[in-house]
């Protein structure tokens, strides 16, 4: 392995990792917001909107991110809407992630017993207060493992961003292979970069799950 090559081009990877992390985080935050919004709509059974939410969830979960990105990047300009690579990446990731996050939140809401709502009502709490103090905290603690798994999954999905001409980690690796034929070194750095980003996230997620699961609620 050519170590000189690795040290020469490592900065390129660091820069690309920044792009991956920045756009990935933004997409994930938006996905959480979209998912939470959809799950609220479904929980409160808001007429009409709940069907739109279900349709969206099925659409986002049953189409590949690559196809979604192609639609945004190559399809939309035909309709007169041109988006930059960055915007496409963030919109695509939050579109995909929103569906997964909504399902994670939904499973949490479903796990909260119906009696909890009635106990809250009988104390005179409003439905907003019941959501905020009683239902949501319990639902969230159930959802956390699924939400964390989604975060890791979505960070990995960012590797298709290169398909819409975005200089992320995958893009840099492909570029170096194309230019210098240093396949081994380029791929080694790519794997290392993803591991450096994702391992801490996974460890953090596991710690968070343990805390919520075992430290809380008197277990």
């Amino acid at each position, binding site marked *: 392995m050519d170590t000189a090559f690795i040290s020469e081009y490592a900065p390129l990877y660091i820069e690309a990792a920044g792009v991956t992390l920045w756009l990935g985080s933004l997409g994930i935050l938006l996905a959480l917001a979209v998912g939470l919004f959809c799950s609220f709509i479904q929980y409160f059974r808001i007429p009409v909107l709940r069907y739109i939410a279900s349709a969206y969830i099925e659409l986002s979960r049953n189409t590949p991110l690559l196809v979604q990105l192609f639609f945004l990047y190559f399809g939309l300009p035909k309709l007169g809407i041109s988006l930059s690579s960055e915007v496409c990446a963030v919109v695509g990731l939050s579109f995909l992630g929103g569906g997964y996050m909504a399902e994670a939140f939904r499973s949490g809401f479903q796990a909260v017993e119906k009696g909890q709502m009635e106990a809250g009502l009988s104390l*005179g709490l409003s439905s907003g207060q019941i959501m905020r103090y009683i239902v949501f905290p319990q639902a969230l603690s159930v959802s956390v493992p699924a939400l964390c798994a989604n975060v890791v999954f979505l960070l990995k999905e960012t590797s298709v961003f290169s398909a819409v001409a975005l200089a992320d980690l995958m893009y840099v690796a492909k570029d170096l292979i194309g230019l210098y034929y240093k396949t081994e070194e380029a791929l080694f750095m790519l794997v290392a970069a993803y591991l450096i980003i994702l391992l801490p996230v996974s460890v953090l997620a596991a710690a968070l799950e343990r805390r919520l699961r075992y430290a809380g609620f008197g277990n």
Partner: protein
Amino acid sequence: MDFEEVLLEVRHLHKDYGNGPVLEDVSFQVHKGEVIVIIGPSGCGKSTLLRCINGLEEIVSGGIWLDGEAVGKDKAKWREVRQKVGMVFQNYDLFPHMTVIDNILLGPVKVQKREKKKAEEEAEKLLERVGLLDKKKAYPRQLSGGQKQRVAIVQALIMKPELMLFDEVTAALDPEMVREVLDVMLELAKGGSTMLIVTHEMQFARAVADRIIFLDEGRIAETGLPEAFFDQPKTERACRFLDTFLF
């Protein structure tokens, strides 16, 4: 005992879930300070009746008056009513993610906007009364069923309700825990609380009630003083029901 002021009045209450009536033409009054025990076979509508009074079920026709005011028409009104009417359920529905003290303080602090410190002092006094002050920081999961029910009673009491509803609060408990919960209720009754109790504990009903309402198939079949009802039931249906408790 004489009771003068009417606190709750239920008039011609009718309720059904779409397949036949659950409650039919139920009318009665609860006076301030009175303890009424509702008994009757399973499925006779006892729990539904309590749930209607607390607005957890919509009524089909008839009306409910609390303190002379008609309730049940608009949703916002129910929140006020529920502060005046405390309810304890069969399945000790405490909030599992909160400690005992947080469970108790949720109502007074978030609904009644009372000062947290004062409410906490009061909560401690109530916890002491039910013998659970040492469980203040415990989570519901760490308590026995009987302890949970006593916390649930404190949770309702701290709102200073004018009327307390108890829906088969000992039905899901192990036998040895029934007593500790009934003792708390008996003490409340002696202290002058107005209570509407649904129970299958006949000895307890006899000891605590000022009046018994016997409900059968959604109708009030018989009402009377506890001694009269238990010793000389007037209706044949009540006789048969009471017989099932004798071995």
